[in-house]
């Protein structure tokens, strides 16, 4: 996986996927579906230690390091945010610490969800990205 596509290429895949949707309903249904399909997080990681507190919903991110690559898994108590967790994992998981830390992650704007999801403190998207990059940096150091 990681060998085949770079973070930027994966972002482009998502941008292309989302561009197929004409309406906000389709975009969110897709995100909700991704949330529902996200591989469950091992309950032992659903603790305060791995929790990223947003104002309204909680996100848990756990990372592991193997053969120079960082692998993420995660969860959220809100399904749309869980869909976002899924997107972030799709894009970032399986890459090197440096690739993850350097990733611009412009796709959030490009897929047209950012106006709801990125700007307010009511969600943990920004905090989620920050935590994933911090994890990666820690593995890389």
């Amino acid at each position, binding site marked *: 996986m990681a060998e085949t596509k770079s973070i930027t290429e994966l972002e482009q895949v998502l941008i292309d996927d989302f561009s197929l949707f004409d309406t906000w*309903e389709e975009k969110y249904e897709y995100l*909700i579906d991704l949330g529902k399909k996200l591989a469950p997080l091992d309950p032992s990681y659903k603790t305060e230690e791995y929790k990223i507190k947003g*104002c309204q919903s909680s996100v848990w991110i756990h990372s592991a390091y193997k053969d120079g690559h960082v692998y993420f898994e995660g969860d959220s108590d809100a*399904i749309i*945010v869980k869909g976002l967790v899924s997107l972030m994992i799709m894009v970032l998981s399986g890459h090197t610490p440096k690739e993850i830390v350097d990733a611009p992650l412009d796709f959030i704007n490009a897929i047209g969800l950012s106006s709801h*999801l990125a700007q307010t403190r009511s969600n943990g998207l920004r905090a989620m990205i920050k935590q994933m990059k911090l994890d990666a940096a820690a593995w890389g150091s």
Partner: protein
Amino acid sequence: MTDHIPFDVEQLRELFPILKRKVKGKDLVYFDNAATSQKPQSVVDAISNYYSTYNANIHRGLHTLADEATAAYEESRVAVKQFVGASSHEEIIFTKGTTEGINLVASSWGRANLNPGDEIIISTLEHHSNIVPWQMIAEERGASIKVIPIDDNGILDMDAFKKLLNAKTKIVSIIHVSNALGVINPVEEIISLAHLNGTLVMLDGAQSVVHLDIDVQKLDCDFMVFSGHKIYGPTGVGVMYGKKALLEAMPPYQGGGEMIKEVTFEKTTYNELPFKFEAGTPNIADVIALKTAIDFINKQGKNRMREYEETLLVYATDKLKSIEGLKIIGDVPNKVSVVSFIIDGVHPQDLAILLDNQGIAVRTGHHCAQPLMKRLGIVGTTRASFAPYNTIAEIDILVSALHKALKMLK
């Protein structure tokens, strides 16, 4: 009064320019009035008119603009005095808002009057603004905080309250109307019980002043605080009412200009009420526009607006209850036009995002009342709060938007 004129919501909506805007291509449905109300054009104009025609610093200037600005500022104080039924304009202190008012009382009165072992009573319903300032001063003074419990509907346990009152209880600071649930607290009874115990009472009127008739002398509360922006006025202005004798005995809250009588490097004497508590150049424009907001309320008639809000509340409660799995928290007779609800298996944040996409503004989350949410055993609620410019048709839009959101989430 205007009580005899039938209420015309379409006419009222014309006064609020923002109600014409579109959100995500749809007509805005604004159901977040408990967070902040929208502003009539007259309030917007009052601010603009001040800056365009008589902007000046107040109280000390000896020129025409300063005179006009001072007069308008002090007229606003008189309007507030009449609006809440205070006995003197000296009892009306302008603040930034409810939060600053509570901090002022906790800090100034608290520092002068709280001693180690003293007790402060609040309730489980409190907004963080009526918890944290008391925690800060309690820690500083060695006092402690006692909390009135509630039942599952947000009704205060008055027997527990009576038991909490004792010789060490110095003040009860209580939310008049719950911001999270809309439940009206029996503040008359709380005040009379507290006073029998020799305890002062502060009312957090942030959610009550816009809906309920307020007469601080009749209520006999010792302090009451509220915000301008929840009563159709601007943000950044609020009111702290306090009984004159209490205010006179309290030390200043902040030092600076306006609040002094005479300053030397050795000793400063403080100005009289109300200026003693208004250090620095105040928020002149917004204080002036607060009067315009009060004029708006007086002209429309609080009773008239409340009666209409009641019809919205009854209709919304009925319609929302018909949604499968939806439970209203605080479904009690004695409440203002706020419906706070949870839906089985649905996170409030998901609902808020999907409603926003349909042009509907509601509030979701813990409503700055985390201890209340913890007591209720929930992460948060979705809250629709109604103002007199809302309509039955908008409630229908909310209900069908909720159905759509639930379909998407299932």
